[in-house]
């Protein structure tokens, strides 16, 4: 018997972009949460939707995952329109919401069983897949524990595992690492990279620049419901602010000599004596190789020579005039979540 049932065939026989949003708009009574957002995510890639709290990230995801109806515009997931064929969209995607939406009073295994059964997986399949997923997310030992006893990181991992039980080709992750400690965050990133390697398409929202930088093939920056920039992390960085050559001299006594040498090749040199560091604006890699060659021929000993591109944080600042990441950072995660909950309703 062929394994591919009708539902699965319907779900998987598709070669176009995994996600396409066309002019999505969502207006609430008193505000426009999402204002003309269009994006395309090719299969097997990761799109990072980056923006501060209240930017409209969650609402955008909710429209693309059929949880809320767009005021205008539409989206397609695996080729299925969210407005005309929401059922097929739901069959094609998994969603990991902002708060871990696992059932606290069930065990990890029971959570997997609940969602697996609702997808229509048979008992044997559910058991086999649960074992695999628990193993993969390092939850095997906690599989029979009630989720209430899980740590934040474990909940997140279980949440993700639950979203994967039906092996959806497209996965939406709304701030998957909000509220996690740095270690759990890095662990989750590894898991997500693994999914992409296996061919899953990811759309993840984040307010952490580093996260977008680490995971996303392409980044869409959103603020006040509008897309304000998009591209690869590199493109975004190139788009705003200039790169700089950063050069660290090994011996302080050679610092002045190095400065003079560098100054003869570039327009402007900034000296940081304490760090034995020289910084000069550069147009790109060619400038740096030129400088490297010059110093190679000189007697000056260098600890380090590199091209520093602006960080995404700089990019965000130059694009929006404010920083993306709040100072409270992870400590404020709970408060942030509450704010976003307000946004999502």
């Amino acid at each position, binding site marked *: 018997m062929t394994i591919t049932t009708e539902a699965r065939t319907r779900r998987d026989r598709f070669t176009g972009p995994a996600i396409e949003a066309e002019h999505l708009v969502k207006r609430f009574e008193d505000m426009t949460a999402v204002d003309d957002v269009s994006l395309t995510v090719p299969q097997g890639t990761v799109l990072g939707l980056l923006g501060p709290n209240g930017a409209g990230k969650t609402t955008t995801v909710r429209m693309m995952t059929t949880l809320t109806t767009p005021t205008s515009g539409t989206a397609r997931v695996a080729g299925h329109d969210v407005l005309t064929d929401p059922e097929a969209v739901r069959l094609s995607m998994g969603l990991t*919401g902002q708060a871990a939406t696992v059932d606290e009073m069930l065990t990890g295994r029971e959570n997997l069983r609940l969602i697996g059964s609702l*997808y229509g997986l048979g008992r044997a399949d559910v058991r086999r897949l649960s074992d695999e997923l628990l193993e993969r997310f390092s939850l095997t030992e906690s599989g029979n524990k009630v989720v209430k006893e899980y740590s934040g990181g474990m909940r997140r991992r279980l949440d993700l595992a639950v979203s994967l039980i039906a092996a959806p080709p497209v996965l939406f992750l709304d701030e998957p690492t909000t509220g996690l400690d740095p270690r759990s965050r890095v662990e989750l990133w590894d898991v997500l990279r693994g999914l992409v390697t296996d061919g899953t398409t990811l759309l993840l929202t984040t307010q952490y620049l580093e996260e977008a930088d680490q995971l996303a093939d392409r980044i869409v920056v959103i603020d006040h419901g509008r897309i304000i920039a998009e591209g690869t992390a590199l493109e975004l960085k190139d788009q705003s602010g200039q790169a700089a050559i950063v050069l660290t001299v090994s011996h302080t006594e050679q610092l002045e000599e190095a400065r003079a040498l560098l100054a003869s090749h570039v327009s402007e040199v900034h000296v940081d004596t304490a760090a034995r560091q020289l910084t000069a604006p550069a147009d790109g890699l060619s400038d740096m190789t030129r400088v490297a060659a010059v110093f190679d021929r000189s007697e000056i000993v260098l600890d380090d020579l590199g091209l520093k591109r602006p960080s995404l944080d700089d990019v965000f600042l130059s694009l929006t005039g404010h920083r993306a990441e709040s100072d409270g950072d992870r400590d404020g995660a709970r408060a942030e979540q509450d704010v976003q909950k307000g946004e999502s309703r």
Partner: protein
Amino acid sequence: MTQASATTTTSSPTARADAPRFRPPGLLRQVQMMVWRNLKHTRRQPEMLTDVTIQPIMFVLLFAFVFGGSIRTDSGSYREWLLPGIMAQTMAFASFIVASGLNMDLDKGVIDRFRSLPISRGSVLIGRSVYAIIHSSIGVFVMSMTGLAIGWRIRDGFGNAVLAFALLLLFGFAMIWFGILVGSAMRSVEAVNGLMFTTIFPITFLANTFAPTEAMTPWLRSVAEWNPISALVQAMRELWGNVPPAPPSASWPLQHAVVVSVGWSLLITAVVAPLAIRAYARRTAD
């Protein structure tokens, strides 16, 4: 686990043999899983059952032994008279269970998770309702046992006895819609509990549940006797043979208690169900 599904290879007949099989589940199966989930909750937290066990038993004991001595009824024994009242109250509280459970699921995003699945949108509500009926039925069972222990008896025929229980469940069904309405409209479980305790709770007292209406001032008596709970309680008392038919001085609803009780339950459902569905749809739409 295979994630090859995102590539085009899965569409060929050579798809990985361990790819999960989809058998889109029918509504019945979906509801079954929702109920399963709630039953698991109850098993993990047996204290969830206090509202249909310890609480009504306490009420029975309080009223039967503390107030009972000074309440005069048209039944041979106050305890026998009291029991149908307690049962109706327990069933009215079915709405509490639905309201707080639904509100918690909405608040924690569990409903969003369900809504992202390829399942019927009704299964969540139907599942909750079925669970609420099971929950309240436990209460009815416990009350029946308590009643039998303190002297309540079913004195009429089997058919009438079953009819009384059916009326009770029908009323519970109507109250569930009220629970869905409140659970969807309120923003927190605290708000749900607050509203329920200030509405349903007094309403269950402003009736013939614990004391006869005859002694009330005329306007209050009318209010109490037109209370849907009074018709239900009167109907159960008559069907179980606990009291003689209502006196001629009683209001019209009590004279035709069985029919009126059915009518009330249908009317409440007809009015509240659309409001409840609308409130739920609005709550989940944004």
